């Protein structure tokens, strides 16, 4: 199992920050997922070995955190917030618009593997609602036209 040099440098730096090895687990899982795309059996086995845990212990943690996934998803994870501040400003309409445009439902991935759509809980963009995150990028004060443009940008990015 090979991770990038950046991942390895971060991992090596992070582990001694804690009195117990497993403390590095949660952020490490997310960084690993960012590189591989999802938490594959191979990633789980590798990290379990490095942190002196069983694979089951790692899976037990993974299943708790909503950002972690053991299934592959699209290159761009479109996470639309529909929680209260977004709800009253049209968050659901943005979600339904994306569903129609992408042709997938909640946690569905487009056939070309580019986009996964997800309805998410509050992402901390309440004063700039409605909002969505594509991977880690925030897109705020959304309208249907604005999200169309955002999705087109990512499509272009993928084609480059």
């Amino acid at each position, binding site marked *: 199992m090979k991770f990038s040099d950046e991942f390895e440098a971060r991992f090596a730096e992070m582990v001694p920050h804690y009195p117990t090895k497993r403390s590095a687990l949660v952020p490490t899982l997310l960084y690993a997922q960012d590189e591989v795309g999802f938490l594959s059996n191979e990633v789980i086995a590798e990290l379990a070995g490095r942190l002196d845990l069983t694979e089951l212990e790692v899976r037990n943690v993974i299943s708790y955190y909503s950002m*972690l996934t053991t299934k592959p998803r699209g290159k761009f994870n479109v996470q639309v917030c529909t*929680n*209260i*501040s977004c709800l009253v400003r049209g968050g659901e309409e943005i*979600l339904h618009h994306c*569903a129609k445009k992408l042709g997938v439902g909640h946690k569905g991935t487009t056939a070309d593997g580019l986009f996964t759509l997800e309805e998410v809980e509050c992402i*901390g963009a*309440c004063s700039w609602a409605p909002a969505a995150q594509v991977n880690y990028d925030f897109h705020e004060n959304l309208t249907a036209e604005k999200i169309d443009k955002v999705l087109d940008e990512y499509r272009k990015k993928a084609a480059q």
Partner: protein
Amino acid sequence: MADLVSHPDEVKVVSRRFGQGATNIDRYLELDGYKAVRKALGMEPDAIINEVKNSGLRGRGGAGFSTGMKWSFVPKQSAKPKYVLCNGDESEPGTCKDRLIFEHDPHAVIEGVMIGGLAVGARSGYIYIRGEYRYLSNIMQKAIRDAYAKGFLGKNIFGSGRDFDIYWHGGAGAYEVGEESALMESLEGKRGIPRIRPPFPAVVGLWGGPTVINNAETLASVPHIMLGGAEWYAKIGTPKNGGTRLFCLSGNVARPGVYELPMGYSLKKMIYEVGGGIPSGRRLKAVVPGGSSTPCLTDDEIDINMDFDSVAKAGSMLGSGGVVVIDDAQCIVKFALRTMKFYQHESCGWCIPCREGTDWLKKTLVRFHAGGGVQKDIDNMRYLSENMLGRTFCPLGDAAAMPMIAFVKKFRKEFEDHLEGRPCPYEKEGAVEELPVLAH
């Protein structure tokens, strides 16, 4: 990058360096940066604690507990190392203030953690930032590296002969982890399940050591208190509610945004003057004053001061500072449903009243909103919520029950309008049905 707003009534304390380029450590130093911790290094721990106590600073995460008091609970002597833990897992719906602090003034958080450490005798601190805030984690990691490079962190800080370390830590998506004992579990690499208390974290916390856990806004306030003095800070607010608050104004207002206003600022003024009122000729229906877990207030209940005690007197909570304004085009049943859907999703499932209660409430509301409700459901939802109160392992159960009780109590008529198979009177024609959940 989130947009900044301003209003003449604002008193900028925590937000005074916003938009000033203070993520750059040299710029931060020009703006009085790291002066407070230098001052604290020359003070006795008890003097620091007293200063914070006298300032009237109360926990900005939502509970509103006196910060100085919290610090004083940490035992002076401890066989195990002590820790300071900054809670930056900001996930309460309606709340987006810590995000701005990390984005614009990360060194203020570092300084706050260091001062907290000096006060309780800790030699290391952790800054926990939610996983979704990746760009803020990058900003914070750089800020910590820069502080080490200047000799402000690590061995012999500021040539004082004392050592202090600060580490970044990141989450991966979980509201529950904002609860202090679940936060520690998460930092220890486990599922974010709350711990039973007592013992409290101040005595037995991270890896068994005494731990002080404060919200990011609380810690970012501390350096300003050290420099300006307790008396100055206390005077900004109302009695027993020192200082300012970052209010996250959201929902149906003309000018939503994060505004720093003195504690005790009028809620009515906040909505109608600071926020510019309700747009599109609509009227105010309700306001959630402190994040989704706080009971809503109706339009005739908003003539109150926004400090912990006044909002509590009005039957709600100041909470996390998330003020969500709801206009009369919104359906309260739908709003309640979305709120309960959130708590059902975020319940860790560890204790039954919360796991079953939130699920039951959500299911009832789904059916109810779709027109399948019966009269008895209304009282059942209230009865169920009242039976969750105080009976759960951690406050997540209460956080679901409290707003639910208020929705039913204050908007009973709106619930009744959904009875007898009537479709939701607020739903637009041809509204799309709930999306199917695919296997994941």
